[in-house]
């Protein structure tokens, strides 16, 4: 069996997890702390990728990020970056698809942090950023990790949008889920099962690691 899809999946899911958590934390913080009219619209936009079918989402992304798409052209002209049909495209697809899974619980967790503790830190002369880093995040830890784990799992399993944006190019953009899909389509259930076992083992070790990481209370 070709192991390339496994490594690609590892790469894509890890890189996209980094992006998801970074972007997601900012969004969650914005949503939890700032009050602006129509805030719930932001909520709706972030949640959209959950509601529309991944393939359709992928299609939209392809149109926007593609060679002739507004973003795609900009990225290509200014930075010389091509997203579609590259692993970077798979990362983008994974980030967009998994972002809502992170933002929602992370926001709920941030909102659950006792404001009094943040005030106590302010009184000790800390800046908002220091407080976010040393008080808010550690106290919202549980929810943030829950969100990150889900986002990571989703990114690992992302298939519909990835297939559209990154294409199914064996040895280049064929991730494990796509390979599994192919195998099922071919009726090769044995291969599919093997690969499902591999992806399960992978997600299992990640979950185990996360479990171990968060065994304390904070």
């Amino acid at each position, binding site marked *: 069996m070709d192991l390339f899809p496994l490594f690609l999946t590892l790469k894509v899911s890890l890189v996209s997890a980094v992006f998801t958590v970074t972007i997601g934390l900012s969004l969650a913080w914005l949503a939890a702390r700032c009050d602006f009219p129509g805030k719930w619209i932001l909520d709706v936009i972030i949640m959209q990728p959950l509601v529309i079918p991944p*393939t359709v989402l992928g*299609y939209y992304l*392809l*149109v926007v990020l*593609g*060679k*002739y*798409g507004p973003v795609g052209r900009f990225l290509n002209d200014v930075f010389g970056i091509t997203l*579609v*049909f590259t692993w970077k495209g798979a990362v983008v697809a994974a980030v967009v698809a998994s972002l809502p899974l992170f933002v929602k619980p992370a926001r709920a967790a941030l909102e659950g942090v006792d404001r009094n503790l943040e005030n106590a830190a302010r009184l000790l002369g800390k800046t908002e950023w220091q407080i976010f880093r040393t008080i808010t995040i550690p106290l919202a830890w549980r929810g943030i990790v829950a969100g990150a784990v889900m986002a990571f799992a989703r990114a690992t399993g992302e298939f519909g949008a990835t*297939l*559209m944006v990154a*294409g*199914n*190019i*064996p040895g280049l953009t064929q991730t494990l889920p796509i390979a599994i*899909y*192919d195998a*099922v*389509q*071919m*009726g090769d259930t044995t291969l599919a099962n093997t690969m499902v076992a591999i992806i399960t083992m992978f997600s299992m070790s990640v979950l185990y690691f996360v479990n171990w990481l968060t065994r304390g209370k904070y």
Partner: protein
Amino acid sequence: AGEGRLIVAAASTLSFALREVAGDFEEETDVVVILSFGSTGKLARQIENGAPFDIFFAADDAYIDELDEKGLLLPGTKRVYARGRIVLAVNRDSGLVVKGLKGLATPAVERISIANPAHAPYGIAAKEALISAGVWDEVEKRLVYGENIRQALQFVQTGNVTAGIVSISVADVPGVDYTIIDDSLHGPIDQAVALVKGTEAQEEAVRFLNHLFGPEGRKIMKRYGFMIPDGL
């Protein structure tokens, strides 16, 4: 199904053609035709697990044979309804003129989309044609596999690939130029239909097939690029 209802499972390539045929048929009779489109592989898996279909239009007769072997179809009902043709589709905005399959070998054609040859019949044919044309080795690295020919075409349509090999039945869309590929370059893409075992609407199903294979039906099918081979 039953009670004057017919559920037809069909490969998504047939969506336009069958809709028209079914429309005519519903007018002629009082049978309600429900069309369920999907990828052939998926539909086959569903039939294996007891889907309530009466008729199964596959994009590839291999699936019909496979199901037949498992005894899931009414024996002797298999009929080839079309022999598929593949075309070379090129994005019009790319400004490239691709001359035949050999033209795909030029580096100007950055990416080429075909349906996944692992399971899609048109993908297999495309691969065979590329091999026969002697350009497979050059183009293999530049191939993008679509889940099916629709997706392969979408890649071309959105301009993200320059050219693609798709079936003639889907190729007639805005922004895409296509040329038919010689059918000697690939094995026949026989598309077959059969009745599903356990159907409660066998009589209606037969009438529907008769309609499809009748002159009216053939005309519509042909218009959508499904050439029913003579003598079948």
